[in-house]
Structures are given as structure tokens and as C-alpha cells.
């Protein structure tokens, strides 16, 4: 546990070395994206003949738009996935391979540590905005939502680890990161709440583990559904961790067999 906390601390310290990058990641990027989405939903709702869309009113969509980008930023993995891909491609992975800590564990600790700090800072912005705008929000559910997101991050890291392992077998495996994160962007409901999709996509998407990236935590704090659905999603995420965990284990073992210790 001490080594995990030390790795998490390393991640936070590394990011704090670059203050502007940290501010862009934690505040500027999600604030701008949320501003655009709030504007978009305001226009959509103003243009509708009725006060509701899909059974929900303007306040719900405003709250969703406010939170979705912040939660989506926290539950997506760009930076550490690129780092792992680069390290495997260039042989920097050697530095961890010869130490008594697994590569998966080392990066999971860093990823969780960094995201926890980013999450605590950036979530305060939509919470404050919701309060000022009077948007619907269950403030008492926020701590549980943060814990749920932390659990989902294990799933996100496991998927990223699978992508990173591809670097053992091919150059430029990083192109998969873009495609994967685009797919997650849609599947998580960051742009459009999942219950606005038509059946049978809606049912599939809502019950996939990817929904827990945005739709589930945001829906939970905005009151779209209650605790029962959160527990169901927890099971879905757990299944996702097991399935992608087995795939990651397989790819890692095969990758090490093919590895030539590049650059050492």
C-alpha cells in the first residue's frame, strides 16, 4: 500500500511541475466544453414546443451538460495511456520491469492519484454553477459518486493497459487511443444522455460498463435514477474489469515474450 501511495504521490508531483498544463486539464478545458454544451441544450430546449424532452425538463439537461464534461474529463485516460504506449515502444518500460512492482499496478496508482486530485478540484466548479443556476442536483450523493468514479477508473485503466500492450506487437499503437476514446465518449453519454438513444441501442448502452463513465454518475447526482441503478452499474463495471483484466494479462504475457528490450 505504501508503494501505491508513493506512486500516486509521484503522479501528483509530476503534474504540479507543469502548472499551466494542470490548470488546463482540471479547469479550463472542462469549463469551456461545459459552456458550449449548456449553450447547446439551452438552444435546443428553447426551440422545443414542449417543456420536456424524453420526459425531462430544461433544468435536468442543464445540470447534465454542466457535469458531463467534468466527469467525462476525469474518467477518460489519454495521458497515462500515451505514456504507457510510449514507454513500451521506446523501451522506457525497462525502468519498471526491473523493479519489484508490476507495470499495471505502478500506473494504476499514478492514474488514481492524479485523477483524484483533478476530480476534487474540477468537480467544485459544476457544483457551484448548479447552485448558482438553481439546476437540479442531489448534493448529498456527490461523495458516493466520487467513489463510484474511482472504481470505474480501475476499469478505464485496465482497458488502457490492453491498448498499451499492443505496442509490444506494432508501431503507432497510439492510433487506437483516439478511436477507443471517441467510442467511449459516445458510449458513456458525455455528449448526449444515453436515454435519448433509440432502442435497442439505448438498453445495450445503459447496461454496458462504459455508461459508468458519465451517464451513471451524472444521472445519479442529478436524480435521474436512484441507488439501485448505481449498484447494477457497479456489477457491470466489475464484469468489465474481469473481462478486460483477463485480456490485459494475456496481452502482457504475450507481449513480454515478443519484447526485445528496445533501446537498452
Amino acid at each position: 500500500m505504501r508503494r501505491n501511495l508513493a506512486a500516486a504521490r509521484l503522479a501528483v508531483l509530476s503534474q504540479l511541475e507543469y502548472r499551466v498544463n494542470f490548470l488546463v486539464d482540471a479547469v479550463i478545458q472542462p469549463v469551456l466544453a461545459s459552456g458550449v454544451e449548456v449553450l447547446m441544450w439551452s438552444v435546443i430546449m428553447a426551440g422545443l414546443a414542449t417543456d420536456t424532452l424524453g420526459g425531462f425538463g430544461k433544468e435536468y439537461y442543464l445540470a447534465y451538460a454542466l457535469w458531463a464534461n467534468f466527469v467525462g474529463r476525469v474518467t477518460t485516460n489519454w495521458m497515462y495511456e500515451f505514456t504507457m504506449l510510449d514507454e513500451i515502444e521506446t523501451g522506457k518500460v525497462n525502468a519498471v520491469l526491473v523493479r519489484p512492482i508490476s507495470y499495471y499496478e505502478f500506473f494504476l496508482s499514478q492514474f488514481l492519484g492524479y485523477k483524484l486530485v483533478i476530480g476534487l478540484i474540477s468537480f467544485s466548479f459544476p457544483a457551484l454553477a448548479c447552485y448558482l443556476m438553481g439546476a437540479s442536483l442531489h448534493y448529498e450523493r456527490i461523495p458516493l459518486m466520487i467513489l463510484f468514479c474511482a472504481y470505474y477508473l480501475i476499469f478505464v485503466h485496465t482497458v488502457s493497459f490492453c491498448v498499451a500492450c499492443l505496442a509490444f506487437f506494432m508501431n503507432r499503437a497510439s492510433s487506437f487511443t483516439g478511436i477507443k476514446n471517441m467510442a467511449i465518449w459516445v458510449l458513456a453519454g458525455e455528449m448526449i444522455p444515453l436515454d435519448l438513444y433509440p432502442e435497442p441501442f439505448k438498453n445495450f448502452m445503459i447496461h454496458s460498463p462504459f455508461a459508468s463513465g458519465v451517464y451513471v454518475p451524472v444521472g445519479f447526482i442529478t436524480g435521474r435514477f436512484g441507488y439501485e441503478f448505481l449498484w447494477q452499474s457497479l456489477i457491470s463495471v466489475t464484469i468489465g474489469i474481469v473481462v478486460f483484466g483477463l485480456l490485459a494479462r494475456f496481452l502482457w504475457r504475450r507481449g513480454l515474450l515478443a519484447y526485445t528490450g528496445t533501446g537498452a
Partner: protein
Amino acid sequence: MDLLQRFCDNLFMSVIIETRNLSRVYKTYRREEGALGALKGFFKRQHELKMALKPTTLSIEQGQIIGLVGANGAGKTTLLKILSGLIYPSEGEVSVLGFKPFERKSEFLRQISILLGQKAQLWWDLPPAESFNLLTHIYQLDPAQAKSDWQNLAERLNCTDQLRVQLRRLSLGERMKMEIIGSLLHRPKVLYLDEPTIGLDVLAQNTIRRFLAEYVKQYQPTIILTSHYMDDISRLADRLLLISRGEIVYDGRVEDFVAHAEKNLQLDIKSEETDFEDVIHRFFEKESGRRPTGGTLPT
């Protein structure tokens, strides 16, 4: 008490590293030049196997310092990578401290260290002191003892002032000193040093050589050292392995080889960066093509 312990260790030296017919083959692909070659290569790859390490049988005893010398691409780093568990061997058997290195068990990794002279192993964005703190936890060392150790090592390497400067802002020589501290922090029993002085100025080379010589005297780890500089080898190693095209072609005492090379081949191999492929070639030419092992020198 320490002296008694060392005396007993030396008296009952045990084999720490053992290989039997250990080899490594890399799969590469070759294509013809030009656009047509690229197009052909796209549809049909001409793969070929390259023997980076030919079947090698070695036995290294506790506390020995081995100088592993050879030209670029001779197979030095491949051997080190197998012995440290970075890569799998293609065939043969290998045992280090009783472990199979490629299984990379924590108990094994806690007792070894590898320093790759051309590759940073500390964290680029952080001051070395932060990296050492992380290593303290990774190796589950006592934090107070580890801190005292890395401060002590930094003093001996004259780099205390740089401990709190971001690694990427340090010069090559300063970085290498920090890498050395990082690799010695957990007092490894087996230490692989791959070109620890490459690219450094004479002053930094000397500081590192002097430091390593003192460290070896004090802690007596088993070391395999590769270098392009014969001076590194002659100052530190007591046994020399010459490797050429994936094959160990000489295994003997360093002094014997240096004396022979200087006297019979008129080579000043300690004063400059040596083309070891040329040295090895001339060494065997003098010997009419016979390849000695076990320390046999041509007369």
C-alpha cells in the same frame, strides 16, 4: 564482524549466476530498396533470424566483478537483458541467485539492479530526491535509513546540490551519478552496469570509476560491467569476458589480456575508446585464428 563475514563469504564462494547453452535469437525483416521494395515488403515479408547470443555457458561466483567487452552489436546488452529478466532467452537455462530471471519474481528483483548508461531509469520530470523516495517505497526500505544512504552516496559522488533539481535539467554526468545512486539504493547483491561512463567527460568518468571502486570494496556485490572504455574494466574487473558476434571468445584475467594486448599487439587499449572488434580480430590473428577460452593467451 563485517570483516569476518566477508572472509567467510570469500572462503565459501558460491555460484550466483549460471547459464547453460543460453541463447537468444531475434526475428528481423529485410527488404529491398525503393518503392518497389517497400510495396513487396508490404505484401510479403522476408523474415530472417539473427543469433544475438550464441549458446553460452557461464558460471559467475559471488563477489566477482566481470568485465564484459565487445563491439557494438556483439551481444553484451542482450546477455545483460536476459540476466536481469528484461527479455526471455530463446533457448538454454539461466539462473541468477537461484531464480529464473525472466519470471521476474519480487524477491529476485529486490536483489538485483541494472544501470543502462544510455537510458534514464529515474523519473524525468522530478528531482532525483523524489525518485529516491519512491524507490524507497517500491523496495520497501526503511525511509530514514534509505534517506541517509542516498544522501551519503550523493556526497561521495559530489552531487548533493543537484538532488532537488528536476532530472531533465541536469547534465549527462550529473544524471548518471543520480542513476547510479538510484540503482544502489537497495544494496543489490547483483549489479549489471551497462556502459556507466558512456558519453561522459574525463572528470566525470574518473569520479564514477573511483566511486564504483570504493563501493565494490565496501559492499562486495557481484557485478557485470560492460564498457567501451578498457580503463573502466581494468580498474574494476577481475575477470574479463570478450564477446564477439554473440559468442564469448575469451574468458580470463583482465591483467593478462591488457598486458598481452599492450606488449604483443602494441595496442594502447586503456587510453582511448577502443574498437574492440578490431582488438579481438588482431588478438586472434596473432594467435593464428585459435580462439582461447579459460584465460589461455597466445604466446
